[in-house]
C-alpha cells in the first residue's frame, strides 16, 4: 500500500493508509479522520493504535503482577529470576518485531519501544535485557542474517533464549571500532581470539553476536559480526561485574581463546560489521530513551502519591509552591523526553531519517532520568533514601543511561554533526 508522506517543519503528515501496515482499528481511523486536514492527517504522538494500546495494557499488567514482586530480590541478589525470564518469553515480549513465521509477534518498532517503557516503569534492569533482545539481537538477525541462520536462531531468540551483543572491549568503548578481537580464517572456520567487556545478558544468553576484525590492517572495514553459540569451545564467560545499578542484568567479560566458528555463522557480509553495528545502535538508542522515560515514570509513580499524603506544617509536601514548581518542571521535561522518544520511533517506523532525533531522545531522556530520580529522593525526604521505598533503585539504575549505548558526549557529537550538515 503506498503512502504519501512529507515533512513540514516539525510535523509529520501522512495519508490515512500508513505504508505497509494499514490500521484497521475503528478507533484510530476515526481519530485520524478527526485530525484530517486538506493535506492529509496527523495524530498526536501519544495516541496509539488499538494493538499498541492492547499491548501496553497487557505488558503493564504483566510487569505489575509478575515482575514487581521480584524486583527487590533480584536487585539484592544481582540475579535475574529464570522463571520470570521464561514467562517473558511465553508472553511474547522477547520477539516483539519478529515475524510470526519465526514465532514472534510481528508487531511494530513502536510497539517494542512502548513495551520497553512499560517494563522499565517497574524494573529497568529487566527491561534492558528485553531491549537488547528486541532492538539489537532480533533486528540483527532479521535484517542481516542469511535465511539458514534466521531459521535456525530466530525462533530460539523469539521464544527460548536471550542473545548478547558483544562489541565493547577493555580498550574500546566509545571508540568502538578500535576493537582488537581478531577472526582468522582457517579453512571453513574463523578462529576468534580476544576479549569483550561489559556484555549484558551474558549469563543467560544462548548466542553471542560477536564483533571481531578479520584484518586489522583494514581498520574498521575488517569488522565482521559472528554468531557464536554459548557452549562453543574457546568461549569463556567471565564472572559478572558488580555494579551500582541494573544489578540483576548480568554484565560480564567474555574471553575468546582460539574459538572456532563456522563461516556460515558470519552474519551478513564479511567486513560490513561496522555498518550493521552503526545501524542497529542508532535504533537501540531509542530503546534506551524508552527505558529512561520508564525509569522517570516509575520513580514518579512512587513519589507523587507520597508527597500528597505526607503533611508538614499543616499541608502536604506538594502544596508547598517550591516543590510544586519543581514537580511541574520535571513533568514538563518528562513530557518532552517522551515525545522525543515516540517521535524518533515513529520516524524510524515510517522509514524516515531518524538518527539525529534518536541521539537527541537518548541524550535528553538519560540526562533527565538521572536528574529526575535525584529530585524524587529530595522531595521524598528521608524515606527516599531507604531501600524499602524503592525510589533509590531507580536513582541507581538511571545513572548508566548517560553512559551506555553511546555516552552523552558522543550523542552531542552526533547531533552537532547533523547541525553542520543541515546548514
Amino acid at each position, binding site marked *: 500500500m503506498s503512502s504519501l508522506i512529507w515533512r513540514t517543519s516539525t510535523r509529520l503528515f501522512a495519508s490515512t493508509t500508513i505504508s505497509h501496515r494499514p490500521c484497521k482499528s475503528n478507533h484510530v481511523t476515526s481519530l485520524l479522520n478527526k485530525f484530517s486536514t486538506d493535506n492529509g492527517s496527523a495524530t498526536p504522538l501519544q495516541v496509539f493504535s*488499538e494493538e499498541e494500546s492492547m499491548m501496553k495494557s497487557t505488558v503493564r499488567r504483566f510487569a505489575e503482577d509478575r515482575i514487581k514482586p521480584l524486583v527487590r530480590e533480584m536487585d539484592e541478589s544481582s540475579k535475574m529470576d529464570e522463571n520470570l525470564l521464561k514467562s517473558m518469553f511465553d*508472553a511474547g515480549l522477547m520477539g516483539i518485531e519478529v515475524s510470526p513465521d519465526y514465532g514472534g509477534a510481528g508487531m511494530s518498532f513502536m510497539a517494542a519501544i512502548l513495551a520497553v517503557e512499560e517494563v522499565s516503569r517497574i524494573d529497568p534492569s529487566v527491561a534492558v535485557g528485553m531491549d537488547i533482545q528486541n532492538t539489537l539481537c532480533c533486528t540483527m538477525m532479521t535484517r542481516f542474517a542469511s535465511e539458514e541462520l534466521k531459521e535456525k536462531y530466530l525462533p530460539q531468540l523469539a521464544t527460548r533464549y536471550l542473545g548478547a551483543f558483544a562489541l565493547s572491549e577493555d580498550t574500546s568503548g566509545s571508540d568502538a571500532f578500535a576493537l582488537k578481537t581478531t577472526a582468522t580464517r582457517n579453512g571453513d572456520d574463523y578462529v576468534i581470539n580476544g576479549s569483550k567487556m561489559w556484555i549484558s545478558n551474558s549469563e543467560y544468553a544462548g548466542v553471542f553476536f560477536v564483533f571481531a576484525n578479520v584484518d586489522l590492517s583494514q581498520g574498521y572495514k575488517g569488522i565482521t559480526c559472528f554468531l557464536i553459540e554459548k557452549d562453543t569451545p574457546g568461549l569463556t564467560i567471565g564472572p559478572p561485574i558488580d555494579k551500582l545499578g541494573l544489578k540483576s542484568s548480568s554484565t560480564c567479560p567474555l574471553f575468546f581463546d582460539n574459538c572456532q566458528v563456522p563461516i556460515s555463522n558470519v552474519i551478513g557480509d564479511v567486513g560490513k560489521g561496522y555498518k550493521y553495528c552503526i545501524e542497529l545502535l542508532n535504533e537501540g538508542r531509542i530503546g534506551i530513551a524508552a527505558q529512561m522515560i520508564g525509569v522517570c515514570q516509575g520513580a514518579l509513580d512512587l513519589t507523587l502519591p507520597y508527597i500528597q499524603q505526607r503533611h508538614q506544617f499543616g499541608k502536604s509536601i506538594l502544596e508547598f509552591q517550591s516543590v510544586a514548581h519543581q514537580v511541574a518542571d520535571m513533568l514538563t521535561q518528562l513530557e518532552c523526553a517522551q515525545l522525543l522518544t515516540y517521535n524518533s520511533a515513529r520516524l524510524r517506523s515510517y522509514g524516515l531519517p531518524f538518527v539525529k532525533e534518536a541521539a537527541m531522545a537518548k541524550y535528553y531522556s538519560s540526562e533527565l532520568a538521572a536528574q529526575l530520580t535525584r529530585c524524587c529522593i529530595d522531595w521524598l525526604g528521608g524515606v527516599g533514601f531507604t531501600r524499602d521505598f524503592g525510589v533509590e533503585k531507580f536513582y541507581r539504575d538511571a545513572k548508566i543511561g548517560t553512559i551506555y549505548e553511546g555516552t552523552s558526549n558522543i550523542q552531542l557529537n552526533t547531533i552537532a554533526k547533523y547541525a553542520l550538515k543541515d546548514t
Partner: protein
Amino acid sequence: MAGSMKVLVGCKRVIDYAVKIRVRPDKMGVVTDGVKHSMNPFDEIAVEEAIRLREKKIAGELIAVSCGPKECGETLRTALAMGFDRGIHVEINDRQLYETLTPLHIAKIFAKLVEKEKPGLVILGKQAIDGDCNQTGQMLAGLLKWPQASFTSKLSIDGDWAHITREVDGGLENIKVALPAVVTADLRLNEPRYATLPNIMKAKKKPVDKVDPEQLGVDLSPRIHIIKVEDPPVREAGVKVDNVDELIDRLKNEAGVI
C-alpha cells in the same frame, strides 16, 4: 479433536479497578471521559474458564459478547486475544441510554442472542465492578428457563451435566446442573492468562459481528431515572473508650443506636 460445545461469555467494559473514581460535576454520574477502562475482572475469569474448557476439548466455538458504545470493541479484542474465536458487539451509542441500562435489559439482550446462537453453556462474571448488581446471570437463567449456578469457584463438565462448587455464605456448596446452563464466575474460579503479544496480533483477524439491539427486538427504554450521584460520606475516625459504661453511654447518648 476440538470439543463441540459452543460457549457464550459476556465481557463488560468497565472503569479499570485501579482508577480513582470521581463524581461528575453535574452529579449525574461518574467521570468516564479519558479514564482508563478494561474488561470487568470477573468477566476475564469467565473468559479464562471458557478457554480452559476448550483446552480440555469440551468446548468448541467461544463467543464473546459486549453491549455498549464503540469502545467495547477493544474489550472484545481482549477476549479474542486471550483465545476466543468470535465477538458480538451489541452496539449502543446513545450515551444517556447506555447509562440507564440495567441487568434486566442486558439479560434480555443475552436471551435473544442465546436463542440465535444456541450455546451449550453461558458463563458471565458474577457481577460488574461498577454496578455490583449481581443480577444479570440469574435473570438470564430465569428468562431462558435454564438452570443457573452462581458464585462458581469450580467447574467441571461431565457429558450433559456440569459439576459446580459455589462459594456461599455458609461455605462451599457442591451441586450438579443440567446443561445448557448459566454459570456466573467468582474470584477463585481461576487466574486469567495474559494476552500474549503474538495473540494480540492474531486477534485482529478474528471477526466481530455488530448487532443493533432493535434488531433483536429488545426494548432498552430506561426503567430507572438517575436523580443524583454523590460521593459516599467521609469515614470518620473511630473513638476509643475506657470502659463498658462509657461505651454504653456513648452508644445511647451520642450515636443514638440503643
